């Protein structure tokens, strides 16, 4: 697989279109449309469950065989954003966060406001520095003080575009930069890169049959960012033998960070987690993935810090328990309008997932022994 030739532009354009789509938690429909369209062109069967997850399935081997193994691969479609909770008489929108957004990345940003069908441009207003007292200048503006300006002049005209309960997402640009233009900058790389990787793995595996007697369920899930976890209900439905969670992980590999707090390095490969705040990952699964990456020449790094949590938390505790692996693309400035990741790490994520599926027979024959 190391010799594989990639169509870099094709992958980047997929990441671009997915990451720029509007999809704050609870309002993922624009992302859903994109993914469904892509799955249709690949002629892969898929369904929606009650929660709103998209589940696509690839079946390998003899479908009549008893005791076929099931792998669930998941990446979430939603992104952090805001919800409008008041429209004031001047036509400004006030809002609350959906998911965790740092106070320092809100003020002065462009946003899109709406319900997914019709979107309106706006700006998160910020008090001019001239009007701030000295001590106010050193602090991030409080959320209660921030508001969104779409150019409306009064409540009634504003309400024609959005209302209490409408969603807001960052309006950001996608570009590549740095050496070999390998750095990707966009909003919502968390976790649209995972969605893109799944789509590319589906494409790569759709016409092969080298994986043994296996069903692979690719789940594009909703509501990860508020911890409610669409992935949980998908796992309940599928009851997999093994789950692979494709994620991003926040890293601190920047100037000035002390070595033990850098977490991982951009460009050094996809991260495998040992433990985070929601999951302790199984040793057998970690060892299997580590040795597979070595064999296949895929860049993989162990995440060197315990932080965060993701859909693995709810998947591994679902039903009577599920063995789960988290594979994350290290990403800087997560949950901001300008996330930065490395394209090579994305490729490593995609490749390791494909390799795990292809070689899952080896894993399953090992675990049955224990």
């Amino acid at each position: 697989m190391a010799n594989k030739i990639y169509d870099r532009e094709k992958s980047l354009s997929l990441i671009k279109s997915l990451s720029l789509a509007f999809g704050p938690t609870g309002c993922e429909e624009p992302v859903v449309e994109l993914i469904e369209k892509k799955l249709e062109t690949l002629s892969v069967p898929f369904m929606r469950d009650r929660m709103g997850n998209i589940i696509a399935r690839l079946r390998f081997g003899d479908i009549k065989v008893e005791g076929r193994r099931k792998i669930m691969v998941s990446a979430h479609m939603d992104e952090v954003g805001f919800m409008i909770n008041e429209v004031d008489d001047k036509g400004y929108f006030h809002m609350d966060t959906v998911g965790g957004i740092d106070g320092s990345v809100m003020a002065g940003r462009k946003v899109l406001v709406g319900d997914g069908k019709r979107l309106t441009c706006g700006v998160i207003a910020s008090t001019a520095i001239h009007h701030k007292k000295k001590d106010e200048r050193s602090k991030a503006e409080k959320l209660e003080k921030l508001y969104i300006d779409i150019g409306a002049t009064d409540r009634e005209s504003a309400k024609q575009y959005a209302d209490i309960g409408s969603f807001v997402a960052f309006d950001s640009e996608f570009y590549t930069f740095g050496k070999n233009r390998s750095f990707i900058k966009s909003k919502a790389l968390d976790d649209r890169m995972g969605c893109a990787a799944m789509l590319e793995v589906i494409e790569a595996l759709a016409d092969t049959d080298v994986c043994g007697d296996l069903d692979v369920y690719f789940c594009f899930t909703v509501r990860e960012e508020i911890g409610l976890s669409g992935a949980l209900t998908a796992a309940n439905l599928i009851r997999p033998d093994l789950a692979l969670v494709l994620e991003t992980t926040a890293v601190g590999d920047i100037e000035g960070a002390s070595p033990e707090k850098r977490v991982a390095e951009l460009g050094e490969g996809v991260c495998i987690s040992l433990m985070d705040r929601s999951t302790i990952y199984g040793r057998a699964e970690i060892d299997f993935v580590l040795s597979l990456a070595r064999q296949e020449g895929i860049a993989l790094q162990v995440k060197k810090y315990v932080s965060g949590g993701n859909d693995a938390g709810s998947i591994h505790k679902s039903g009577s328990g599920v063995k789960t692996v988290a594979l994350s693309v290290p990403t800087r400035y997560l949950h901001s309008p300008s996330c930065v990741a490395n394209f090579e790490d994305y490729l490593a994520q995609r490749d390791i997932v494909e390799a795990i599926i292809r070689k899952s027979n080896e894993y399953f024959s090992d675990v049955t022994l224990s």
Partner: protein
Amino acid sequence: MNIYKELKELCLVPSVSGREEGIRGLIKKKIAPLADEVYIDALGNLIAVKKGSGEGASVMLCAHMDEIGFLTTFIDVDGRIRVSNVGGIGWAAASYSKVVSEKGVKGVIVPEEKVKPNDYSSSNFYIDIGAASKKEAERKVSIGEFFVVTPTVDRLLGKRICGRPLDDRIGCTVLLGIAEELFSAKNDGDIYYVFSVQEEVGCRGSKTAAFAFAPEYSLCFDVTATGDTPGCENMACRVGDGAAIKIKDSSVICHAEIVKKLVSIAEENKIKYQREILTRGGTDTSSMQLSGRGSVAGALSVPTRYIHSGVELCDLGDAEACIALGAAFVKSLSEGNR
């Protein structure tokens, strides 16, 4: 069963949350002869089933095998090991303790100089294994390996003992004791002895085990805090005053039916008991109560001082009371014993 010997044997096998292989192997050997079937599930729970005639209420008895500890996350240029806590480490209690890795590498855990106890956290502690360089350290310890505060168990006055990790190897010992008591008794419904994983990080193992077996009743065996030390929080629970029948902790309010039943069984059988309301801390009871279709959930606790330190202290008499009460409760679920 020699309860002290049994407990000590269980305590001396380090097994932090998520890495319970060691203790699981040991308990499996002990429980297998007392049950009809033994499983290990996807998360690593050890489940022993004593089959019933199939017509009575099933019951899950649960104690957690895991203990708190440290996970190696980083080794610096000088060979010092940075760790993350696994479970609720009290950093002040852990400071300047001897530790041992899963592979038996010895070391000490210490805070960086000048950090005040109030600011103690995983980010300013490190483990010193005496390595002279990163290279030397990496030959002994890899990222992802765990350490624990070195386990010890000693007898104190009377039936008091002291050491770690009594939380919750004492519960595991109680569960083994109950299994022995029930071995020759007939039971109508299935009995599930569950030695659960990952309790210390949020009661994860018991949730999936309870889901899989959907027992009608569930009973958790764990330690509880006490109100019998100078300057402690007020709590009507004392070491040596008997099995603590849990009424409430911060994660659960036990089913009133099971509390009532346990109290009346204790009184009938003259088993020393006390009522427990724990205002801080949770147990596997909550996850068993609400997993799947839910169960009628309760808990018996061994009152323990200095929990999560290296010198946890309890009274074996209380553990014996838990065995007697737990076994009597399970027997009461079967026809003819009611």
